């Protein structure tokens, strides 16, 4: 694709609300998916002839299935509170990137075809026909939303643009206008088991290589088991962790923590993907389809715990949706045979699913891990709250735990930690700019512009506090930052996994024979170790 020329935004001292520049991000949107990628998901490839009727019908269907869509379409009063909250608006100044204006692309059509006022007085209430121009705007601007939900935090009615954007993408898919990036990846995830299309032998090789490498580097036989039936923990992690930088250093970190804990764990070749792009395209069925692979893997491998690696929207799907979609969770009613089949197998002493950060944090709290924090002394670290973790999940079962736990883990392994400006972290965190199915080269302009607010906050702590490391717990954030950091004159290698920091500092002093021991013996050893830790 002939890359469009665009300016990389300057990093201001403070984020200013830009003057509106209408249509500056107008365009054809990301590459469209052809038959090959559309049909396996049950969507037509290319705009169908009667697309308008199909689209209106789908809108009606969605708003009758999702209360969020119906209520959000009716409730907006156009107060303007959200207008300066979207990182894509702040970075691009295109008014259609203001959350309410983005929603209005959908809402104006809803009003035209579904409301009394819009049917009879369209001009008065800003109702618009669904025409070619409108559907082009949908495709373009609903792929400039990373579904990060920052606007929803600031909306007096909690209106969530992500819900509207998901609905719009589902309508687009239904009429044949799918996004190539997401739908191609979903095809691989639903047939091969991961977004990379890495088949079982390749995955096994990769993991064996990793074992060799880690043993060479750290002198400990850290294992990365695959498809081991009867393991205690099934780890579901984004497939980027298997090969991408800096992700893989995070995977090494998980392996070391498991090794040091002496727990038995496994990956699954059938469900070798944490990321669930079904959420991005808004399709409940496809999202469920991807989630069901994890259920099947958990049942087949007879694990008692399901754990999730560092991935933002994967954790949202796991934490908030898995129990609903596939029964991976707890608290099913006694008549719910479907969920109980799995939940009776899972160990209710642990949260199901559990985040790797929750697991490591818990081990640290119980004194089971020892660190040499000086290993990270050349680093001054700040933490980027990934949008889906921050705004749609929890950790540790305490209020704000999703903010507290990762920071506590970092502080346990690093001496130098600084937070970025308060209005850019925690529930108000700025998206990295590449989430929600936007992590593709054909959307590079919006990715770079959308990264500006995060980069600005990072610049501040770099200047003021000497921050040289940006830690994150999301595969998309890590990939996106690797790409955009140099555009803003940062070191691309400053982005790390939280478990990379853990990996650097953790002391591997687990006696080798412990790994061979049966589980009961391991627990006995644990108890002794715990006592030792207490006496220390």
């Amino acid at each position, binding site marked *: 694709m002939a890359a469009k020329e665009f300016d990389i935004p300057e990093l201001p001292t403070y984020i200013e609300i830009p003057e*509106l520049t209408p249509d500056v991000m107008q365009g054809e949107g990301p590459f469209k998916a052809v038959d090959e990628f559309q049909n*396996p998901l*049950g969507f037509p490839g290319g705009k169908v002839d009667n697309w308008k009727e199909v689209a209106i019908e789908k809108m009606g269907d969605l708003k009758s*299935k*999702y*209360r969020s869509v*119906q*209520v959000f379409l*009716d*409730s*907006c009063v*156009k*107060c*303007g*509170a959200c*207008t*300066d*909250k979207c990182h894509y608006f702040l970075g691009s100044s295109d*008014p259609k990137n*203001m959350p309410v*204006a983005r929603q*209005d692309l959908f809402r104006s059509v809803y009003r035209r075809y579904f*409301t*009394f*006022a819009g049917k009879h007085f369209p*001009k*008065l*209430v*800003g109702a618009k026909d669904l025409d070619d121009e409108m559907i082009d705007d949908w495709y373009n601007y609903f792929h400039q939303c990373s579904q990060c939900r920052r606007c*929803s*935090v*600031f909306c*007096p*009615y*909690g209106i*969530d643009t992500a819900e509207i954007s998901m609905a719009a993408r589902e309508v687009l898919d239904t009429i044949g206008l799918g996004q190539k990036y997401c739908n191609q990846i979903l095809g691989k995830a*639903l047939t091969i088991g991961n977004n990379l299309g890495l088949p079982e032998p390749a995955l096994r090789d990769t993991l064996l290589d990793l074992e060799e490498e880690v043993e060479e580097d750290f002198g400990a036989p850290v294992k990365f088991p695959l498809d081991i039936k009867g393991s205690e923990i099934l780890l579901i992690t984004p497939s980027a962790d298997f090969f991408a930088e800096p992700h893989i250093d995070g995977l090494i970190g998980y392996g070391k923590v498991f090794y040091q804990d002496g727990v038995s764990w496994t990956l699954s070749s059938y469900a070798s993907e944490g990321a669930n792009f079904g959420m991005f395209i808004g399709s409940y*069925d496809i999202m469920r*389809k991807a989630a069901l692979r994890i259920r*099947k893997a958990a*049942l087949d491998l007879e694990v008692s715990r399901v754990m999730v690696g560092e991935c933002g929207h994967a954790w949202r799907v796991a934490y*908030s*949706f898995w*129990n*609903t979609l596939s029964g991976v*969770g*707890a*608290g*099913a009613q006694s008549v719910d045979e*479907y*969920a109980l089949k799995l939940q009776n197998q899972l160990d209710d002493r642990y949260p*199901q*699913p559990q985040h790797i950060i929750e697991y490591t944090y818990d081990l640290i709290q119980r004194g089971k891990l020892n660190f040499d924090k000086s290993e990270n002394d050349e680093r001054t670290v700040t933490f980027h709250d990934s949008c889906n973790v921050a*705004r*749609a999940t*929890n950790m540790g079962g305490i*209020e*704000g735990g*999703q903010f507290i736990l990762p920071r506590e883990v970092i502080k346990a392994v690093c001496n130098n930690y600084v937070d970025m400006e308060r209005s850019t972290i925690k*529930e108000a965190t700025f998206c990295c700019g590449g989430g929600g199915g936007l992590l593709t080269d054909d959307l590079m302009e919006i990715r770079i512009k959308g990264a500006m607010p995060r980069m600005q906050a990072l610049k501040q702590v770099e200047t003021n506090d000497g921050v040289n490391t940006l830690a994150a717990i999301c595969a998309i954030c890590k990939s996106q930052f690797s790409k955009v950091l140099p555009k803003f004159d940062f070191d691309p290698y400053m982005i790390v996994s939280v478990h990379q920091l853990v990996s650097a500092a953790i002391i591997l002093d687990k006696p080798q024979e412990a790994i061979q021991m049966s589980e009961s013996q391991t627990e006995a050893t644990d108890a002794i170790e715990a006592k030792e830790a207490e006496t220390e």
Partner: protein
Amino acid sequence: MSLISIIFTALFYISLFIFIVGMGRKIRQFWITPVPLKIPIAPTPLTQTGAIFKMIREVTLFESLFRSNKWIWLFGFLFHFGLLLVLVRHLRYFIPGDLPEVFLLIQPFKYAAFAMIIGLAGLLARRIFVPRIRYISAPSDYLMLLMLIVIGVSGAIMTFTSNHTDIMMVKAFASGLIIFDWTNLPTEINFLLHLFLVLVLLAIFPISKLLHVPGIFFSPTLNQVDNARKKRHVSSWALKQEKENTVKLEQTIGKDE
């Protein structure tokens, strides 16, 4: 009864009918539409009590709006709070006969009209002068504010200037509407305009953005408890799919289980 009184009496019942039926249908629609997924928005409440308190804070204090934009919050709060007090004070007209003594206490609420008007004027000014908000405004957004301002100003004129209306007559008319004992109403232009626009407002309630009033209580991001891991949440249509093992993609990607 005068013709104008008959017209207004009829308008009152028509508007009220549209309001009740329209709102009833809309609330029913919100109520029966399933919520397939847990989507609470941070900062999320972990308990049912927490969720209730969050909703109370949102409805009474506009907590999210306060975090978001202090000016919109200030004007929005002045308007809504002023309106609430003014509405409470208007109850006197609809209660037949002597008023309970508590109404002496709400007498000073008449000054709330100014809070209401100032809030509305501020919101209108922002809509006109802030380019971002002007961009997202449709004609109806301005009209709604103008209508409320005219209602507020015409009411204030009757209360605070010498253009008083015969409030005993108003009371007889208004309480008559409640107990079906219809009488004439005063015919000063201020009063008729005030009443007419209130009736219009009532009638357009179910078909306009005023739906934010019931909407907020149904907003899943605000009213859900963040307990997805502890309690299984499945909507009616999703449960049906699960039971019937609907597999739309079986040719390409294998079956459930």
